[in-house]
């Protein structure tokens, strides 16, 4: 009875929220004299009507699946790991080191090492905040935000002063200037893209698409995360500690250890968020490395109602919006910012929608009793 009701909630609320956001978006577009119908037609038509768009959505969703899952783990632990942002960047950098630093390995070995390095780097960056949380009571929201800022500077130092690729070809007489990036990853450290796989089922992906096996790794990880949280003793402890620490302690659960493990797990997952870009599109860590996967991961986790399956849906939705924004921007006069506004309205309205539906369900149950 509880389960069925929850399932209903899980579906209705997001639909309500998306509908409401689309409405708000329309009002804004009307206000600036744009045609919302046209904009939405482009948004959906462009992003869902072309094979390269679909593949691009999958590519854009891949990092968000990881950062979203990282948030889910931390949320379920009752911690707010805003540091996913800094963690995935440090992770990506560490992965890059392993990618260009090691040579002559077969891909089957090199790729896992690069991924492990990504996770390790991110965990390293999460270690201080969780230590401070447990030993000094420093709230993780504040400490991870500080760590994010420290990461930006630290990475800039590593990038610009220590590991800069000094072999870049430049023009004569100061033409061009060396780019602030690491050397390129060895070929064995590049993640294979899905072209062959798609070709096997008769779909030819354009060559400029970078969606890779990390997408499947992300989906598999979502399943794993779901099991960890809901089916394992560790997940049980994690939920118990999150929902009532003192009772968990009384039951002999070492809350601190559970918190540390969960936080580091969250960071490890975060460490994979940057790899899709690193191991496919870029092939090196660059000063232009994408930012905001961490913050978008929060949004995706919220959209997905903190469930692993929801994260995948949320990531795909965000990927679609981002892809749609590219089309809207190029093909209509509507600024891409409308899409950002749409995203935030969606987050807020989804939580409000859940609340409204919960209340509705409650009054319904009350009526049942009265009858």
């Amino acid at each position, binding site marked *: 009875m509880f389960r069925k009701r929850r399932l209903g909630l899980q579906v209705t609320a997001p639909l309500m929220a998306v509908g409401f956001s689309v409405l708000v978006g329309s009002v*804004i577009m009307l206000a*600036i004299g744009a045609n919302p119908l046209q904009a939405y037609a482009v948004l959906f038509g462009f992003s869902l009507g072309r094979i390269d768009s679909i593949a691009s959505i999958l590519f854009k969703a891949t990092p968000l699946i990881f950062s979203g899952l990282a948030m889910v783990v931390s949320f379920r632990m009752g911690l*707010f790991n805003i540091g996913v942002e800094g963690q995935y960047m440090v992770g990506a950098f560490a992965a890059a080191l392993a990618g260009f630093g090691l040579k002559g390995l077969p891909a089957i070995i090199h790729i896992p090492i690069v991924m492990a390095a990504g996770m390790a780097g991110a965990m390293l960056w999460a270690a*201080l905040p969780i230590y*401070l949380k447990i030993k*000094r*009571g*420093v*709230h993780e*929201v*504040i*400490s991870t*935000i*500080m*760590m994010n*800022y*420290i990461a930006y*500077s*630290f990475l*800039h*130092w590593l990038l*610009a*002063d220590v590991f800069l690729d000094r072999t870049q070809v430049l023009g004569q007489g100061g033409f061009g200037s060396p780019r602030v990036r690491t050397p390129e990853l060895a070929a064995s450290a590049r993640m294979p893209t899905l072209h062959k796989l798609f070709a096997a089922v008769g779909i030819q992906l354009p060559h400029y698409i970078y969606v890779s096996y990390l997408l499947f790794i992300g989906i598999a990880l979502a399943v794993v995360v779901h099991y960890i949280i809901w089916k394992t003793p560790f997940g049980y402890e994690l939920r118990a500690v999150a929902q009532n620490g003192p009772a968990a302690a009384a039951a002999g659960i070492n809350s601190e250890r559970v918190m540390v493990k969960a936080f580091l797990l969250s960071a490890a997952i975060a460490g994979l968020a940057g790899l899709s870009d690193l191991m496919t599109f870029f092939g090196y860590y660059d000063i232009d490395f994408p930012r905001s996967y961490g*913050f978008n991961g*929060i*949004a995706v986790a*919220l959209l997905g109602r903190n469930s692993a399956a929801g994260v995948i849906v949320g990531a795909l939705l965000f990927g679609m919006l981002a892809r749609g924004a590219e089309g809207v921007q190029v093909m209509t006069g509507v*600024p891409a*910012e*409308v*899409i*950002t*506004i749409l*995203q*935030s*309205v969606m*987050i*807020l309205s989804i*939580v*409000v929608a859940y*609340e*409204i539906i919960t209340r509705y369900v409650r009054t319904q149950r009350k009526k049942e009793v009265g009858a």
Partner: protein
Amino acid sequence: MDAEMLASALRMSTPVLLAALAGLWSERSGVVNIGLEGMMIIGSFWGAYGSYAYGPFWGLLFGMVAGLLLAAIHAVATVKYKVDHVVSGVALNILALGLTRFLCIKIFNQATASEHTRAFATLNIPLLDHIGFLKPLVTKVSPVIILALVLVPLSSLVLNRTVFGLRLRSVGENPLAADTLGVNVFLMKYAGVLISGALAGLAGMFLSVEHTGMYVEGMTQGKGYIGLAAMIFGNWNPAGALGASLLFGFAEAISIRAVSSVIPYQFIKMIPYALTLAVLAGVVRRAVTPAADGVAYERGGE
């Protein structure tokens, strides 16, 4: 260290102080306000617009009202719809970012900066401005800095001495108890959050109009979050928040003035953040969160 550096520290700490006061007003009423950053962003934009279009006073008003309006969304979401406070705050921060960018394109025809704004006339503190070595500190002071400083004892006074303050605090400590005594819990929470928004808007307005002379995207640089840290460090007290903000401003001033041929400049840029972390690690243990901070209040299941 000299008066010039102190003046710089004071300027850098003012937005942090205002953000800390903003956070404090909200949290004392039991609502966590991570959305401060967004309220500052929107305050910095509207402050700039108001000042650009009508002059500094209007900039102040626009900035505060803009912050207040965003806070109103936060209040409705958290108080009425019981949305998790942090969730709502994060969403508002994203919203503020998109909205200001959008508005900036519409109003200034460019995404990331406004036109130049008009600041308030600066003040010299009478008497003190004759003392030579103090000069940089007490001359050409922005009135908003003075306003921020005045808000410290004023906040203390209102929170601790007035009926309004007592009720507001009671709601942050034990809303159920307050409710049973006839205190309008929701009204108090709305008041706390709205004041918070207005102060955050003022903080943003200070950045754009007073400190820089224009709005530039991303100019808040996480000061909303740092304000929260200052609030915690200051133990949810206005005077404590002032001390913490000054410390942070001071760290910024140091990072600006520190020159070293040995330490890479990137490490100098870390100073304010590392120092904030260190300070929190050193003191937060004695912090006393308002007992019902961040907890949705619902009248007995109804």
